[in-house]
């Protein structure tokens, strides 16, 4: 990666990579925005699959860029920037990235008990949903009735997390191998 001191206006390989992945994540974010949801604004977070792939192949910094770009630009394009939906997305994405870091750290520390893309994705999806629900419940609909939906939302997160994790692992297996390995896990064998 480039040293932080120099600022180069010409996009390099890394920038292009981030841009490409971010565009993909944004496209998924926009499509997801038109899905109906039992709680207005809460989404399955399918774009997190992209963040996961980036994390596993290109490291934490790239993943944070992709995640942040997806939330900001995606919300801008959907028209939900600075609206409650935006805060729900942002909190979900933040908690999700945090959990993915922890997952990656776990993989490095305990390679015997390695989590593949599937396990990481499930954790990320649960974190994403929990983050959204927490914000929704504390800030927007502090009504006990909302808790009725929590089992449903968590169940959906588990399902989506498993599916996107599986898709991500398939994609990772197909992508050409990198020159250097990024974080403790790559294409699952």
């Amino acid at each position, binding site marked *: 990666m480039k040293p932080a001191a120099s600022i180069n206006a010409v996009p390099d390989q890394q920038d292009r990579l981030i841009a490409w992945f971010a565009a993909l994540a944004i496209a998924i974010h926009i499509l997801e925005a038109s899905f109906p949801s039992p709680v207005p604004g809460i989404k399955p977070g399918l774009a997190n699959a992209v963040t996961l792939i980036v994390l596993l192949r290109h490291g934490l910094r790239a993943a944070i860029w992709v995640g942040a770009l997806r939330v900001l630009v995606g919300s801008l394009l959907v028209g939900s920037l600075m609206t409650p939906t935006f805060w729900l997305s942002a909190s979900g994405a933040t908690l999700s990235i945090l959990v993915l870091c922890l997952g990656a750290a776990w993989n490095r520390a305990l390679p015997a008990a390695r*989590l593949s893309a599937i396990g990481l994705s*499930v954790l990320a999806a649960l974190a994403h949903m929990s983050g959204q629900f927490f914000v929704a419940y504390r800030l*927007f*609909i*502090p*009504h006990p009735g909302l808790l009725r939906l929590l089992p449903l939302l968590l169940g959906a997160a588990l399902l989506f997390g498993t599916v996107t994790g599986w898709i991500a692992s398939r994609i990772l297996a197909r992508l050409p191998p990198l020159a250097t390995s990024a974080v403790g896990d790559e294409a699952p064998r």
Partner: protein
Amino acid sequence: MTRADRVVIVLAALLVGVAAGAYWQPRTVADRVEVQVGDGTPQVYSLDTQRHIEVHGALGTSMLEIEDGRIRFVSSPCRNKVCIHSGWLSMSGDATACLPNRVTIALLGHGAPEIDAVSQ
């Protein structure tokens, strides 16, 4: 899929089960609705009387309509009108909100199970 993955999935499933045990309630017919603006005091309205309610939120006025035991958003100053698309709500635990306008409505009930028709 690694062994750790399987453990994660099982633990996640347990979490969902615990949440279901703790929070799942059968749907019952609601008889009143709680309307709240931001974190202000919730106002409770009965669902028996036909009426329109004007709610003044952060962006402007949302209009609610109560008729025959159900309630819906009729108009709201938000852009996406998600609240209006929720349609009629009638079961306890149902909730919707106009998040941009900070208006939330939540239905409370007294335990009567879902009704198909009313003889009158």
